């Protein structure tokens, strides 16, 4: 297997200015303090950790929604960490993101059809309006939405359905990599499995590489081949999913696993 994306010594620092709500005294917060890992083509790579560990920041750095302070992100042979916005545009066709909150990640004033069609418009693919509509509707079917709801607005859908819209949008251009940042955390438990299975099916059918970020360790185990555990901006343990869950080596990983409730019943 080849590595689709190679991250080396990635650092992200945020400045703390003497603003109203923070203590005075300048300095920086090291949200991500030098992480390195590879994501193999076709695998599902998991990033777990508690709040503030830097996993969401890492996800956003990988897709260049944030600019790294230093480090390299080698995507299919090119270091995208230092590319300009213009140079990044073709890269963005290959990598897409799915977000946590199905309620705020969709523009409430656009119809579902136009939300899913937007990637086509931005990257100037499928210029013919009719052909585009057909593609959008077929995407809707793929993710389990009714294509006749093409003209509905986001608020007319449930949380789980909105997340499906987000997924349809993400796979529209058939990217190589999808980074999913807590894609099911905001959904009801009985809906989570639906969306998780959808992601697994899509990955298998489209040959996607998936980077899956979550705080729920059980969900990560279900979805991921390899898992990296993050704490305070660093990766403390990285390994094969089964190995990590049954025989963790780092103290923090052990603590994390021990804290998951419900292990007393079998």
């Amino acid at each position, binding site marked *: 297997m080849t590595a689709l994306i190679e991250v080396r010594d990635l650092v992200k620092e945020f400045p703390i200015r003497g603003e109203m709500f923070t203590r005075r005294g300048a300095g920086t917060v090291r949200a991500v303090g030098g992480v390195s890992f590879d994501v193999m083509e076709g695998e599902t790579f998991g990033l777990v950790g508690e709040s503030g560990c830097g996993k969401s920041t890492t996800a956003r750095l990988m897709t260049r929604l944030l600019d790294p302070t230093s480090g390299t992100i080698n995507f299919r042979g090119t270091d995208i960490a230092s590319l300009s916005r213009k140079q990044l545009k073709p890269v963005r066709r290959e990598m897409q993101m799915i977000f946590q909150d199905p309620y705020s990640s969709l523009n409430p004033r656009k119809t579902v059809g136009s939300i899913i069609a937007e990637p086509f418009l931005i990257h100037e693919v499928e210029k013919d309006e009719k052909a585009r509509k057909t593609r959008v509707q077929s995407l809707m079917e793929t993710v389990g939405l009714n294509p006749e709801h093409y003209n509905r607005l986001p608020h007319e859908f449930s949380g789980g359905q909105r997340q499906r819209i987000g997924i349809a949008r993400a796979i529209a251009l058939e990217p190589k990599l999808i980074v999913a940042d807590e894609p099911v955390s905001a959904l009801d438990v009985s809906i989570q*499995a639906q969306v998780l299975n959808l992601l697994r099916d899509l990955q298998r059918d489209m040959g996607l590489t998936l980077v899956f970020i979550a705080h729920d360790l059980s969900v990560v185990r279900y979805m991921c081949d390899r898992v990296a555990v993050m704490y305070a901006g660093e990766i403390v343990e990285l390994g094969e999913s089964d190995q990590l869950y049954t025989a963790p080596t780092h103290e923090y990983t052990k603590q994390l696993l021990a804290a998951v409730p*419900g292990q007393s*019943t079998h």
Partner: protein
Amino acid sequence: MAPLLEVADLKVHFRTDDGVVQAVDGISYSVQPGQTLGIVGESGSGKSVSSMTVMGLTRSPKSDISGTVTFDGRDLLSASNEELRKVRGNDIAMIFQDPLSSLHPFYKIGKQLMEAVRTHRDVSKAQARDRAVEMLGLVGIPEPRRRIDSYPHEFSGGMRQRVMIAMALMNDPKLLIADEPTTALDVTVQAQILKLIKKLQTELGTAVVMITHDLGVVADVADEIAVMYAGRIVEHADKRTLFDAPRHPYTWGLLRSIPRLDTARDHVLVPIPGRPPSLITKPSGCAFNPRCVYATPESRTTDPVLLPTAPGSGHLVACTLSEEQRASTWKGIVGGEDPA
């Protein structure tokens, strides 16, 4: 032993512009002194509304509440607002989900804690303060005498939740209702808080109603578990029974669709199809029917009643399938069979 809290056929309806929302549609349960009841359900199941109603927090011109709620021998539903106010924060206390927003940001925690006790007891400021320090120490806040003068934003999320628990326990309540107390917290903090609640329960003898969507949480802390769906209780059993021999298709659905820490990599979760129903226009017959893989024509027309699985059993299920059918279906599921 007489139950501490007994809820009988509780119904809570809200009149809105879109119609009448039947948030709680006839639930009955009881809690013994010192015991923990877990109420499990998703959003829209009515789990929070039913508990808020016990405290009298859902009374409004737009709400219709019926049934009985008997606490320590008194009917709370027919009590006046003033009588209920005396019970709230005193005999029955409640803690909520989001500790970051559940404390007043402008007041020191000491003041908020002292207020809790001075509302119900005639104590001096010094006495109230001592009590507050004592409770903060009990919940594990380091240096309580110093930190009592801190503001909420100076604490982390886990610490804030401990403060909330301390505040709830200021008046030694007989019953503590915890509504998703750990959902907003990190998993290691969650473990600490659950351990704390369990410890306090043992030390103080408080009964606890733990409301959550997380089956793992109730597995750890509850003695009995009630599963709610669309405003009804669909299954009620002691913990062991619920996980070993559940009898309601919704419970089965939950158990099969939620990944566990030991779920093998190649295992496929079986989601519950469809979505939770609207509480305004509920389907006829069994509310779970549209999503139930084992639905029968009978369940489409008959509204199941919560009944014991066997005479005298404490295991209650609301399902039109017979006990034999349910038992054998569950056996099949455990054995790895696909649903019918």
